[in-house]
């Protein structure tokens, strides 16, 4: 007989001080004794995950051994950079702001992206803004993506993206995360520091990251925490209110875009609970009761979680070798 308590929002509660201490201690130990580095580089977006991660890094190794990077581009909101700088000052760490837009222009990021957008919406051009929205998974359909664009006069266009155009837009946009990672490793190499990756559990489990982009790092201190736990931890760590109250966005496309409309089936609080429930073998009917949705819809959410997990396997997979090289097995 199971002794599991009934599903409720309380399952996500944490002893925040104990958790912060545990993470900081392990992060310090891993940096010194496993990674053999002298400090930590953290790229901060002004969002909750990178903010909590850098605060934990400071707690782990001290503000003198943490280097922050703020790396905006054309489609970043101005407020995210301001929040990033305010956080770096709040924590007292060294930081650098570098606009990566010129490099993205040079590498063709916007050109490739806009070419694919214009195949779907020919009038897209100067003064237009856009975003990609996910659709289908929560209704029991296969996920597909829609392009939404708004013109200079406010005219709105919405088109289902065919595979070729979707892949090209995403591939071009992924330049942003990959270029940021290149800069993070430049500074890490120059300082002999390690790079901190900042995914929360939802992102890590469901594949909301770019392989060899923001998915790349030496250590990921909050990958085991649900997003609402990260918010709670950030508040516990005393981060500024403008950070702990910010709505999570992708900050990647020119139209404002919530993470839930781009990738997740539900707002993060509900998604956290659904993922926790899935991980603890809670039935769809019990999840449905707590989320106040039908059992059928709860089952669709479970199915969507599993579908994304299958897709995520590729993102986590290291390069496949033709033969195992056992001499190089790493010891932790």
């Amino acid at each position, binding site marked *: 007989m199971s002794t599991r308590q009934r599903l409720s929002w309380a399952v996500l509660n944490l002893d925040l001080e104990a958790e912060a201490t545990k993470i900081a201690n392990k992060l310090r130990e891993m940096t010194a004794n496993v990674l053999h580095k002298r400090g930590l580089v953290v790229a901060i977006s002004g969002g909750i995950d990178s903010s909590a991660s850098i605060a934990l890094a400071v707690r782990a190794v001290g503000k003198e051994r943490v280097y922050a990077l703020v790396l905006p581009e054309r489609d970043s909101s101005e407020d995210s950079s301001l929040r990033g700088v305010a956080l770096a000052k709040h924590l007292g760490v060294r930081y650098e702001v570098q606009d990566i837009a010129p490099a993205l222009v040079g590498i063709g990021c916007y050109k490739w992206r806009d070419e694919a957008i214009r195949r779907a919406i020919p009038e897209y051009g100067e003064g237009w803004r856009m975003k990609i929205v996910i659709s289908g998974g929560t209704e029991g359909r296969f996920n*597909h993506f829609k392009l939404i664009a708004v013109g200079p006069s406010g005219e709105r266009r919405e088109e289902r993206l065919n595979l070729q155009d979707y892949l090209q837009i995403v591939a071009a946009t992924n330049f942003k995360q990959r270029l940021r990672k290149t800069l993070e490793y430049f500074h890490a190499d120059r300082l002999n520091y390690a790079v901190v990756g900042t995914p929360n559990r939802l992102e890590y489990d469901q594949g909301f990251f770019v392989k060899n982009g923001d998915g790349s790092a030496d250590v990921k201190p909050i990958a085991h925490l649900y997003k609402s736990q990260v918010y709670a931890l950030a508040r516990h760590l005393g981060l500024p209110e403008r950070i702990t109250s910010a709505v999570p966005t992708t900050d990647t496309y020119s139209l404002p875009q919530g993470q839930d409309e781009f990738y997740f089936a539900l707002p993060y609080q509900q998604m956290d609970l659904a993922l926790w429930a899935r991980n603890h073998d809670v039935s769809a009917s019990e999840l449905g009761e707590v989320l106040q949705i039908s059992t059928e819809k709860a089952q669709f959410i479970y199915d969507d979680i599993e579908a994304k997990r299958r*897709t995520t396997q590729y993102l986590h997979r290291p390069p496949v070798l033709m033969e195992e090289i056992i001499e190089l097995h790493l010891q932790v």
Partner: protein
Amino acid sequence: MSIKQQVRHFILTNYLFTEDPSKLADAQSLMQSGAMDSTGILELIMFLEEKFAIKIADDEMVPDNLDAVDNVVAFVERKQAAR
């Protein structure tokens, strides 16, 4: 080639890199078996729309229509009959 032959050939050669018919059962779930992921489904939809001159609506993008060779063939036949 029949619809089934064309669909099977596309899945075998495009996703599984083989022409061995024993590698694909007509009733098997393409997603559960790992033959296809979510990107693969979008690729299948593009193939069906181009090959069979049909337009697949958002609410038709469901496993009952697309998650097995048998389902795909029945779906294409229904779409063509409705034209």
